[in-house]
């Protein structure tokens, strides 16, 4: 196991290296000038040129890469052109809202989707199964922002139950933290419920057709025990895989939800940085996301050991 862990972690290095080079080059090849945005609309061409020089953007690309990479090797992601703050600090500030939203979304999704998927598979062809299939199509089809506005209208403006926007840090109290996250997590969880429920249903259906299920029933086990202890346990691997992908996506790509609910998360930071051509921040974020994806994949692979004793690393 330790060898496997070491090999996987070591394999991360070339992945991150390729990502670093690619993102660095792509940013500099796309049109746009961070100096022009920073200078403001009324700035002169000379002022823009001065800012460009102060940011080191007038140096050859190879030199710029060398400087950035040298800092990267020392664990320094550089300083944001736009915010004049260390990129690592920016990511740190945005991590809590993003992780909170991701965790709550996945929690809701798993708590709702897995039981729904199991029951739908158990009662295949019944009204619940059909309802779930219909819901999952809706869940995939309705854009997140449409759902967000509907939920805001209903739960915030009409019923006044939850706030419209914003994020409260956990340090300011668990109650406000949870209240502000409830709606965005509910909004985001719909698509993940749809996805995880479908995968759960398909996987459990397959497991329910196995001989050991017939054996378990023949032994007189309760249906609940058969479903959970035998069917679900053996169907877990694809479900866990999808959950892992979901976590990775939530950490990196929920800018629409963050925009609608004014959550200062990593998704919004990424979009702002791209639009402002804030090269160090974009580079740092992409590297960070790459590392997260690798880590999440590793954790998912390791978790297989718990669900399937036949798997050994």
């Amino acid at each position, binding site marked *: 196991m330790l060898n496997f862990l070491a090999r996987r972690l070591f394999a991360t290095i070339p992945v991150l290296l390729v990502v670093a080079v690619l993102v660095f080059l792509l940013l500099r090849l796309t*049109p*746009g*000038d*961070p100096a*022009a*945005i*920073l*200078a*403001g*609309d*009324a*700035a*002169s*061409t*000379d*002022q*823009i040129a001065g*800012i460009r020089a*102060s940011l080191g953007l007038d140096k050859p690309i190879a030199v710029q890469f060398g400087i950035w990479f040298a800092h990267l090797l020392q664990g320094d992601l550089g300083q*944001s052109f*736009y*915010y*004049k*703050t260390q990129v690592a600090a920016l990511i740190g*500030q*945005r991590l809590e809202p993003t992780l909170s939203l991701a965790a709550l979304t996945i929690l809701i999704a798993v708590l709702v989707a897995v*039981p729904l998927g199991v*029951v739908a598979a*158990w009662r295949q062809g019944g009204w*619940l199964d059909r309802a779930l299939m219909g819901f999952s199509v809706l869940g995939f089809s309705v854009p997140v922002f449409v759902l967000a*506005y509907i939920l*805001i209208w209903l739960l915030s*403006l009409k*019923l*006044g*139950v*939850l*706030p*419209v*926007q*914003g*994020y409260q840090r956990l340090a300011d109290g668990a*109650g*406000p933290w949870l*209240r502000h996250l*409830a709606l965005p997590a509910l909004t985001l969880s719909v698509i993940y419920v749809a996805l995880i429920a479908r995968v759960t249903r398909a996987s459990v259906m397959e497991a329910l057709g196995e001989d050991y299920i017939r054996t378990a029933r023949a032994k007189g086990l309760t*249906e*609940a025990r058969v479903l959970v202890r035998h069917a679900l346990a053996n169907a877990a691997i694809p479900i866990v895989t999808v959950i892992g992908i979901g976590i990775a996506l939530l950490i990196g790509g929920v800018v629409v939800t*963050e*925009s*609608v609910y*004014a*959550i*200062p998360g990593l998704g*919004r*930071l990424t979009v*702002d940085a791209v*639009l*402002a*051509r804030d090269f160090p921040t974009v580079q740092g974020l992409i590297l960070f996301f790459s590392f997260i994806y690798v880590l999440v994949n590793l954790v998912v692979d390791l978790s297989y050991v718990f669900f399937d004793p036949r798997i050994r690393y």
Partner: protein
Amino acid sequence: MLIKRAIAAAAAVLSAAAMLGSGGAAQAQGDAKTLRIVPHSNLAILDPIWTTAYISRNHGYMIYDTLFGTDEKNQIKPQMVDTWTESPDHRLWTFKLRKGLEFHDGKPVTSEDVVASLARWGKRDAMGSALFTFIDRMDTPAPDTFRIFLREACGFVLEALGKPSSNVPFIMPKRVADTDAFKQIDDYTGSGPYIFKRDEFKPGDKAVYVKNPKYVPRKEPPSGTTGGKHVYVDRVEWNLALRDGQAQMNALQKGEVDIIEALPFEFYEVAKKDPNIQLPKYATVNLQYMARFNHLNKPFDNVKVRRAVLAAFNQLPFLQAQVGVKELYNTCPSMFTCGTPYGSPAGSEIQSKSNMKKAQELLKASGYDGTPIVLMKPTDLAAIQKLPDVGAQLLRQAGFKVDLQAMDWNTLVARRAKKDPIDKGGWNMFMTAWQGHDIWNPIANPTMDTRGVDSGWFGWAKDDELLALRAKFMRATDEATKKKLAAAIQTRAFEIGTHVPLGEYQQPMAARKNISGFFITNGNIYWNLKKN
């Protein structure tokens, strides 16, 4: 059985949600002494001298003070200055500071701080740079007195020192103002009515200001950027994360924010009808749209072609498309903001009394050879996004070939800085909007800098006659002469087609009804406000 358990679990979750919601009303109204504002943009750059971005200027007004300001009648009035004298030959200006001016760190504001701040500002601001071409030296004969010695008389010393928009000559401590003008400051000590809470600043999330208890306001009532800057709240929070227009409106309706600085036009009627929301009148000076030619590239290197565009660009379609709300826009046949001292219709007949037929005739007579016009359109800036579509249509009606190129704003600003020909990534035209005080006189208005490729602003118009008139304007010391020269400058600008003014509009602000104290600021200024 399983299904019953599932329903019971769902009911428990909903009950928990209802309990979470029980604190809603109190949360929504917020602290009675905290003003929660949604600014028009994200605050990233905290140095209002380093950038011209309006959001940074607004941040500056919170924490810094100015020597002079501009009142609601566009008159220059003293702010930090108590008294001043001007020598009979207009070449020596002596200023005495008010008593009791203190920075947030408790140190007194001295004339050395002022001189250092002006020097840094003069290196970045166009009007400041123009002023400094006249300045021989500055000195500080006493801690509360500074003097400006001019090489020759000029007529805009006070207008420059009291200019209300970017870059505003904010006064900083000398140690901060001594920072290289091309590097950003990292010390935000000011002497203004609010103190910046740097420890609570989270870029892209929140900016926080607290009341400066030691600020000594002037006795006059507040007006524009002048008068008494009284603060009646303890704290101001700028919500930098709330950028979606619908989300802003929802938050205002629910009382989660108190003020939306720039209400999107599509929510204007909704806000008007809401009994809990007001649309305070805070500006008498409008914003102005404009279309800017690139004078370096064909066909706009030909003055006759530019004048054909002036004839084609009727302002009304632009305003109807971009603003849409009739009470918020007006046509303005002036390159200097209408309603300000130099706003006039002088020379504007080519546009204001024109029609498409005339535009077509002018184009034909110009010898236009069918070169496509590269018109840049920003896709991510709702404030001006529709203007290029209207422009393209009008150009085509006039007989132009148009290549309307959509791009994000950052690409546009990068490209407009290029002087290259079209086939190497150049451009012919872009459109933008200005706050009225940035274009209200020939010195501040960057389109009047007609030094060609050496001029500061994009487009690089060249005309020696206009330059000469502008130089005369700078030297004129009486108002009547200035007005005459401004009219002459504008007439010349229309003759050569520096750019095309596309009409003016007001940017509505929306606020909860329990906020009072609004006055004519002609900008985004947050003193004098009470939360009842």
